[in-house]
């Protein structure tokens, strides 16, 4: 177990290392020179050299990468005119655009994306499992059909399209809801939820489809297992068979999926945030991309990478926790 944990974390660090190398290589070797962009119009060669020095892009590339890694682990010092300023670990540098530390920028935006992802996940789990169980039991043909149709439609509709249609319907035509704008949970929980409702629904639609499909398949597969037949042969009532035996087996894959989805939903929130104008990490990324603000781009990408790797690791442990057959060694 402990050995597994260490190996798992070691593997995760390796993946992240690979990711950072890839990112660094791609973004810092890219044809567009960030210094020229920062320097702006009427840039003199002397001024450009200064900017380069301040941004730390005048060193050879491997040295830059080494600095970047050092910054991540131990923090680093940036020259700022005659003095230096210290960027504490984990240092991702300063935004070319706003000159704020990337770490701060990320931390400021994270609660918005987390609110969005968590709410959408809860919503889609509840709806997906509910629909999946109901149609998996095949009690009502019409219900099965509806779920089937919704599942397929859910696969076929992009987040931003759902978002646009929701806005059109609820904010423009019916005027039931205000146009979403983020209110922190700590300020006003009710307004927080009210404003996030449409983004949650938009994000949850696709996830719900996936969960419903998986739950339904799981239920049907489990119900055909031999141990369900044994339970019937020993007189267990159908309700008990479904709740105590079948659901257990059917929902198992969902446990791992949920952890992984929570991470991937945060990346697909890029679209939702842009769509609804929510100031989350995704919006930060889109802004940074348009300004070629490389430290921010690298920072966001690294953050999502960390989230995905962490989620995968957690998923493995969860799986071992719910399935007695799985042993982590």
């Amino acid at each position, binding site marked *: 177990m402990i050995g*597994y944990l260490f190996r798992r974390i070691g593997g995760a660090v390796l993946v992240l290392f690979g990711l950072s190398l890839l990112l660094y290589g791609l973004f810092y070797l890219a044809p567009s020179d960030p210094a020229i962009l920062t320097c702006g119009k009427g840039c003199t060669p002397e001024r450009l050299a200064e900017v380069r020095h301040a941004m730390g892009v005048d060193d050879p590339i491997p040295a830059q990468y080494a600095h970047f890694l050092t910054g991540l682990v131990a923090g680093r010092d940036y020259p700022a005119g005659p003095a230096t300023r210290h960027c504490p670990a984990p240092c991702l540098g300063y935004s070319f655009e706003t000159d704020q530390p990337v770490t701060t920028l990320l931390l400021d935006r994270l609660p918005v994306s987390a609110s969005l992802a968590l709410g959408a996940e809860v919503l889609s789990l509840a709806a997906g499992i509910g629909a999946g169980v109901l149609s998996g039991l095949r009690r009502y043909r019409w219900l099965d059909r509806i779920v089937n149709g919704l599942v397929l439609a859910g696969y076929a509709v992009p987040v931003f399209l759902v978002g646009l249609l929701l806005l059109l319907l609820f904010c423009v035509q019916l005027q039931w809801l205000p146009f979403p704008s983020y209110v922190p949970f700590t300020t006003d929980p009710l307004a927080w939820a009210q404003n996030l409702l449409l983004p949650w629904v938009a994000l949850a639609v696709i996830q719900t489809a996936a969960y419903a499909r998986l739950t339904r398949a799981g239920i049907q597969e489990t119900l055909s297992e031999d*141990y369900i037949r*044994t*339970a019937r042969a020993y*007189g267990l009532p159908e309700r008990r068979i479904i709740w105590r035996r079948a659901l*257990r087996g059917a929902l198992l894959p969902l446990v791992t999926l949920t952890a992984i989805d929570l991470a991937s939903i945060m990346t697909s929130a890029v679209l939702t945030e842009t769509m609804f104008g929510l100031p989350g990490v995704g919006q930060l990324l889109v802004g940074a991309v348009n300004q070629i603000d490389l430290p921010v781009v690298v920072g966001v990408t690294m953050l999502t990478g960390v989230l995905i790797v962490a989620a995968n690791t957690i998923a493995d442990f969860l799986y071992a926790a719910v399935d*007695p057959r799985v042993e982590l060694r």
Partner: protein
Amino acid sequence: MTALVVADLRIRFGDTVAVGGLSFEVPSGGAVGIVGESGSGKSATALALLGLHTGAAVKGRITFGDDDLTTLSDRRWRQVRGARIAMVFQEPLTALSPFHTIGDQIAEVYRLHTGATRRAARDRAVEVLRQVHIPDPARRAASYPHQFSGGMRQRALIAMALSCRPQLIVADEPTTALDVTVQAQILDLLDEVRATTGTSLLLISHDLGVVAGSTDRIVVMRRGVSVEQGATAAVLGAPSAAYTKDLLQAVPHASPPRKIDGEPLLRLDGVRKHFPQPRRGSWRRPAPIRAVDGVTLDVRAGETLGVVGESGTGKTTLARLMAGLLAPTSGTIQLDGADIGKRRGGSVQMVFQDPLSSLNPRRTVGESIADPLRISGVRDPRARVEDLLRRVGLERREYDRYPHQLSGGMRQRVGIARALAPHPRLIICDEPVSSLDVTTQAQVLALLEDVRAEFGLTMVFVSHDLAVLRQIADRVAVLAEGRIVELGETASVWANPQHPYTKELLAAVPVADPAEARRRRALRLASPG
């Protein structure tokens, strides 16, 4: 006094008749066997006794105590299932829920039917686990099924069956998935349980040897009807129905010994095959699995060498080593003095266990047989392939059919034809008949024997079934934990086994003679272990 009376039972799945008018009785405290090949309707009968059919029309009368089971409501059925009639299934691997402990599963059934307290139910679970000889039952009750071996799982399932003290236990192929020695233990246990608790037993099997030793009466089924029934000793001793005679005839018999004086064709010298285990957690590599661990033997030209072993003894690995499909970790394997790994052409061929997996489902059987011919440069092999098909007892037109369109026995014939195609000198058969019905098994064995004689082949025949080897092999090698513990002429090994493991194996072999079966059970129970 009868526990169960089945009268004119008819079961249909849509237009298919699974059981067409079956009648029999199970006396109180007695043991009845139902024997039949696949498709005989025996399992459909078992499911009907518990009302477990969902998509089938069940007609006729099943009288159990004062009830006609076919007319019960769902609620009344649930009071019968598990409490008065309990079932033991074929696959112990999947018949128990993997997510609940063995003890919990037994206790749940007991509580459901008796309304006992949690504590009482847990105690009952431990008690029945002890009754089926699970060591340290109080602790093992907290284990999950995957922590039990196959035999122990089947014991646990029997414990579950016993928990509510049913009047009848229905055991549907309870030992088919188990090793021979474990099979004998489970059959002994069922016999013991019946004697000590006074419950009746309905034992369903495809294997005459399984029912011979454990039942008083048997019903022989074929295509949904009983062709013969009566006292076990009478039916098996003096069968009246032709089909029963065929079945008995198909049970492997000893064949007269042959004199083999060929030179060694295949020589194995100190052969080991170790599979490394993946490194996990600690930095040290775990010890490798020693699948084959030092085997030295000669296969003489013209002989049939039998290799017997239970699951996990490395017999399949050994077969693949002999065919050159695996490279040994150490030791040498030589065919006619040349290393087997460097052999070119088709001089060694194999016949595999599962004829479905051994034929590519996406190619016609003719193409599969033609392959080795094409590789060796034959331009248009169709005529040759059709000859081979006819030689193994198939029609020429089967060339263009796909494996899933053929029966199991026909597929195995195709497998044999493919092995014959490149004119091999040695054919290695890995459990070639273990997935076949008894009568088909007999036909395939006869075919193998024929082609061996006709083409002057040498054969290695790997099997878990000593009875089959007794019929086909000239010599037998007994494999245990990757080593050969005994090697000798078949007749002498059979009559006078030297190694304790061989003796245990022989004692466990099911025989179709009830008196002999009882004698062997007595022997097994007398010698502990």
